[in-house]
């Protein structure tokens, strides 16, 4: 629960962000000396953190059950890759091929991808958000699948085989920096008088409207901001794995992200970050039992919902009344 603004919270978010960015920079500088395997794992963790924290704004805080987050990731991945593959080569000349030029290019690609994903979020969100619960989940699922099928049918973006040879611009610095930014944005948004509106919309939409909140506005903002960061994550992913295909952004991917949000405790950002880390590391740790990994994973999901629906990391739980 939030204490009043003022006091130690006044400057803390910006200082924390600055600190995180500096730390990311430091790790980035040290990266040549870090085992590439661990670097790769860290990058995957960071990308999942961005996905989970952004989805948490929609599902956790605002209570809108979205099952199509992977679709927005796809938009970001494809559009940023299209930029670096098809547009950027024309620009590289004047900008110079050095790290600064490359970094600027990558940032542009990422932000462009994010903005396109945000636009997709708006297009999906506006009509969908009048629906509730199950229906909203389905419509978002439907949109996620449609986005995937669209990319599957666009030949110059690789069709069913996807895009290859995407330049490896994603460094550990970019991943950690954007993860920090995502957490910063979500936390700052929610912990404000304005941001209490997200929670109010979740808790009781009718009461929220009765005190003058435009609940549609909150749902759309959550959706669009969530989609933006999913797009950023997609762009980071594409320039990390260097290859993207529609099949990697399907319903299963959306579910994986949802599981992180639930495991972390919906509306609990630190918990969700921990859950993203845990669920990314778990497959690595479970390599010995890799065959049974997914079976355990799904079993865990069932048990969790029955035994501890508030998530593993949520310690300030108050029992919710049934819907």
């Amino acid at each position: 629960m939030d204490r009043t603004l003022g006091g130690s919270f006044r400057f803390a978010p910006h200082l924390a962000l600055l600190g995180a960015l500096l730390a990311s920079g430091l790790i980035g500088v040290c990266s040549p000396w870090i085992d590439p395997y661990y670097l790769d794992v860290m990058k995957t963790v960071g990308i999942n953190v961005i996905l989970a924290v952004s989805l948490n704004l929609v599902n956790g805080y605002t209570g809108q059950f979205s099952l199509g987050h992977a679709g927005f990731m796809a938009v970001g991945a494809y559009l940023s890759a299209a930029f670096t593959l098809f547009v950027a080569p024309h620009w590289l000349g004047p900008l110079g091929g050095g790290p600064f030029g490359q970094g600027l290019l990558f940032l542009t690609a990422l932000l462009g991808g994010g903005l396109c994903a945000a636009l997709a979020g708006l297009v999906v969100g506006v009509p969908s958000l009048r629906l509730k619960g199950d229906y909203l989940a389905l419509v978002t699922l439907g949109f996620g699948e449609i986005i995937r099928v669209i990319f599957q049918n666009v030949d110059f973006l690789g069709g069913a085989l996807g895009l290859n040879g995407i330049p490896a611009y994603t460094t550990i610095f970019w991943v950690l920096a954007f993860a920090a930014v995502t957490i910063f944005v979500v936390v700052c948004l929610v912990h404000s008088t304005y941001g209490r509106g997200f929670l109010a919309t979740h808790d009781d939409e009718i009461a929220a409207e009765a005190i003058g909140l435009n609940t549609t506005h909150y749902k759309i903002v959550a959706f669009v901001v969530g989609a933006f960061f999913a797009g950023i994550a997609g762009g980071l992913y594409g320039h990390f794995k260097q290859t993207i295909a529609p099949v990697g952004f399907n319903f299963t991917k959306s579910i994986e992200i949802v599981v992180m949000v639930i495991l972390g405790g919906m509306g609990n950002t630190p918990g969700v970050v921990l859950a993203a880390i845990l669920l990314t590391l778990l497959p690595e740790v479970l390599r010995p039992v890799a065959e049974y990994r997914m079976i355990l994973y799904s079993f865990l999901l069932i048990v969790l919902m029955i035994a501890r629906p508030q998530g593993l990391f949520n310690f300030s739980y108050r029992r919710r009344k049934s819907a």
Partner: protein
Amino acid sequence: MTEFSQQLLNGLSLGAIYALLAIGYTMVYGVLRFINFAHSDVFMVGSFIGFYAAKVIPPGSPGGGLAILLVAMVGCALLGMAIERFAYRPLRKAPTLNVLITAIGVSLLLEYSGQKFFGAAPQRFPAVFPTREFQLGHLTISSNQVIVIAVTGGLIAALRWVVFRTRIGTAMRAVALNPQAAALVGINTDIVISFTFALGSALAGAGGILYALNYPSIDPLMGVMPGLKAFVAAVLGGIGSIPGAALGGLILGVVETFVGGSAWSTGKDAIAFAILIVILLFRPAGILGRMTVEKV
């Protein structure tokens, strides 16, 4: 014209299977107000039960085929009841979101267990019924299609009899309308819900066999797309309405087949989602459903 009739027949045959699956979704939604994501995987298990049963019961005769069908239906009914008992019943009072996620968990569990124990690679479903082809004018009708349509019709008729002419069927309708009132007049809602799952899952099992007859390549993930589409069919027809689910299934099957045979054939999977979105945005109650107003 013959092209049209042929496609229509193919579409109805596919639609019949969607109808069977859709009815299962709609029945569970009717009594529990939630979408059983695991239903599509029960369908898949039905196909595999048939696959393994065919190793014991010699396929290729009508009797054998029927036996395999029955075994699959019973097996799936039991599976459905077990899922309800162990995964959903503990969450009877929880927010719908939690149950939805549990359903997703069960679905994943079935899929991954299937991959582990049945093998992830597609396997060939044997011809459990004797296959023949008929010519009706220019129309080519396969015996499997006839079986699909006949069995579906028979099952729906049997279901209708159960729902309207038996006590348990009346109890099901009561629980769907108002669970608290049903409990107050002495209906054991637990038994009714179990029974609903058993029926819906049995239909899914039948659907699994019938689907595998026409599309003999089966694998543990085969239920995902048909399941999603059947769900769209249930919403299209009006979620909670059994005739609606049947109607929605038929419409979707026909539309999908026609799209598949047209210029936009790659969009045939997406057409179901497009229909879903259009329905949810413009008429969420579906064709035969009723809009409900929330009391403030």
